[in-house]
């Protein structure tokens, strides 16, 4: 697991897997921030949530 050059069953090395995962986490954070903003706007401007 510590060999950075080792290619695992999916064809990725550990550093590639970490890079892919960091992109996915960043995308999830951006999506979360935008959707949270959208939900706040909807809650303020519509009868949603009463």
């Amino acid at each position, binding site marked *: 697991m510590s060999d950075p050059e080792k290619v*695992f069953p*999916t064809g*990725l090395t550990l550093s590639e897997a*970490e890079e892919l*995962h960091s992109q996915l*986490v960043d995308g999830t954070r951006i999506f979360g921030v935008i959707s949270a903003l959208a939900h706040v706007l909807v809650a303020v401007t*519509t*009868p*949603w949530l009463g």
Partner: protein
Amino acid sequence: MINSRMWLVVNPTVGLPLFLGAVAVGSFSVHVAITTNTTWVNDFLSGREMGSTDAKMAAASTLDTAQAAEVVIDRTAAGEAESAVITLEDGRTAKAYFSEVKTASLQ
């Protein structure tokens, strides 16, 4: 980064569409549920004031109760309700016939 090693065993060509698809299907179904169970989204899309349909429906249900001006029930000699004539305030009438009362018998 925690969990990043899952991409060593889960192929990204499978895992990424699965993850993004789950997010898309989940959020879409929640929004469909909101649009089909509320009236204010349709109010907005139709250019009406949001929540006005709810208020109109509440007013209409009150009006319907008030319009049932008279109900006359016809009864048999035994006192069972046979039929009823409903007369609205605007003069329209409706007649309702009730089914017979079924009694159980051991004979």
